[in-house]
């Protein structure tokens, strides 16, 4: 039973990550390889807030969102001037620089040793969230809330403009909308909420190190989004469930231990190839990436 709670908590975290990334990648068609960086920034800011500033939970969350938003603004502004592949490469560059700084600036981030003993967040300063069931409740509340927020965003006039940008940037420009500022909004909003995912992860696992937020993780989040499907809300949710549950299911398949991990990865890689080939709209998406 504990095992199932753990899976659900991880699913919730990935729902938050995928639904947020969808705003940028799926709705505005801005492929970014840097989302794990904001996941990490959220986590490390949470640590700063909880362990050094000793703030209770809600101020911590606000700090995480604001901090991540500012960081993403700094990255978005120069990157969005670049077109197409150059933009993707810029996000890749930032993801790599971020990881390198996290890993090597040992004096601040403790580098590869990581930060253990992250305390439980204290709601209103008194109720301490620790243990499986409280985190199950916390992560579920957040994931439902965030899914709701993004659902509203996707189906709002703002979402309409983003979809227009996805279809045809020039047309949106010619209709009098400042496309760049919309792209920046998409970038910042998606990053801020990804940061919340980082907060939950950091406090749940109570230990973080840079390897949880590297390029592999960025690719993982992206793949989850594409497997589930982009453009709507169902897709990312399905994708998050899939990528968390699949490895666990494969655990029960009788792979010999020594190669189990590799075989799970192979199944995962084959899934990507087959889906992109035969069903690029993902399992539940409504937009065929073109």
């Amino acid at each position, binding site marked *: 039973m504990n095992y199932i709670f753990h899976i659900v908590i991880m699913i919730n975290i990935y729902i938050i990550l995928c639904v947020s990334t969808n705003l940028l990648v799926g709705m505005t068609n801005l492929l970014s390889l840097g989302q794990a960086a904001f996941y990490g920034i959220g986590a490390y800011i949470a640590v700063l807030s909880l362990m050094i500033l000793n703030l209770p939970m809600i101020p911590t969350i606000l700090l995480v969102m604001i901090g991540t938003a500012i960081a993403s603004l700094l990255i978005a502004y120069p990157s969005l001037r670049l077109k197409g592949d150059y933009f993707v490469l810029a996000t890749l560059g930032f993801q790599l620089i971020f990881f390198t700084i996290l890993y090597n600036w040992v004096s601040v981030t403790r580098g590869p040793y990581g930060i253990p003993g992250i305390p439980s967040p204290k709601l209103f300063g008194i109720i301490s969230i620790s243990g499986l069931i409280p985190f199950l409740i916390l992560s579920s509340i957040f994931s439902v809330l965030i899914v709701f927020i993004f659902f509203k965003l996707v189906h709002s006039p703002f979402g309409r403009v983003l979809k227009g940008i996805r279809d045809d940037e020039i047309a949106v420009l010619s209709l009098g909308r400042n496309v760049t500022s919309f792209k920046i909004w998409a970038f910042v909003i998606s990053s801020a909420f990804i940061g919340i995912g980082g907060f939950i992860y950091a406090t749940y696992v109570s230990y973080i190190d840079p390897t949880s937020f590297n390029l592999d993780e960025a690719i993982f989040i992206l793949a989850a989004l594409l497997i589930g499907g982009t453009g709507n809300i169902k897709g990312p949710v399905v994708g998050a469930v899939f990528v968390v549950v699949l490895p666990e299911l494969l655990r029960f398949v009788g792979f010999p231990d020594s190669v189990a991990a590799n075989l799970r*990865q192979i199944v995962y890689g084959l899934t990507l190839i087959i889906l992109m080939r035969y069903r690029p709209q993902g399992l539940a998406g409504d937009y065929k990436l073109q």
Partner: protein
Amino acid sequence: MFLQLLVNGIAMGSIYALVSLGFSLVYNTTRIFHIAYAVLYMFAPYMILTFYRNLGIPFYIAFPIAILLTIFLSVLMELIIYRPLSRKKSSSTVVLISSIGIMIVVINLIAMFYGNETKILNPNISKSISFGNIIITHSQLFQLIISILAISTFLVFLKFSKFGIKTRAMRDDNVLCAVFGMNINKMRLVLFMLSGFFAALGGGLVAYDVGMDPYVGMPMLLNAVVALIIGGMGRFEAPIIGGFIIGILQAMAVWTFSSRWQDAVTFTLLILFLLFRPQGLIGEKERAV
């Protein structure tokens, strides 16, 4: 000291140039962000391992066999993955994810059969020669000589054959080329073969020097990409120049900061170029129409 660093940098740079050239052959012409290329770089050394160390075949035969097998793998990727997607006019995101998928599959297959740990190809310590107080290992010499040989041969071939013009035309307008009778598919096969060749060459040369593990592909690919950006897109000389520059700068960085920050230097360079000089040093500016 400086000269020693320069030598180290040039030796490493020659490998970056080689590998980056292979990547650019595919990217410049087909616009495919061929992430799976990282795997080709890693695949060749393991083939050498099988034939040279496990089967006892002499190195100078095992290496070419490995190169051929890598070329074969590269062509396989084009035929099975990229070409069908290109026919469907898939978006670059879809192609990228598929490329990542192949990469994951091959890396884990290798890890499954050979293990995750570092393997060595050459159990002996590499001999070296010295010029004054500059030491060059035999491996470095091999890397330098073979890379430069391969690159020069390619550049000459590019200049004096219709191949160069054809690839430039391909980049500019695929459909138009097909209309004029250019066999795009055949061209793509040739490009993927050459690409595999360069990756295998680079991979083998480095692995002979320092060994390999299933995960060496990605860091090398990143360096290749940065070399491409710094050099500029569009011209095949560009990644070569970029490769040498990165090699030298990294060597300097190791001396100035420490090897830890080597990567940071590379990636900062990437960002700086993307922001301030996206066309690279000798790349072509986007046509303004």
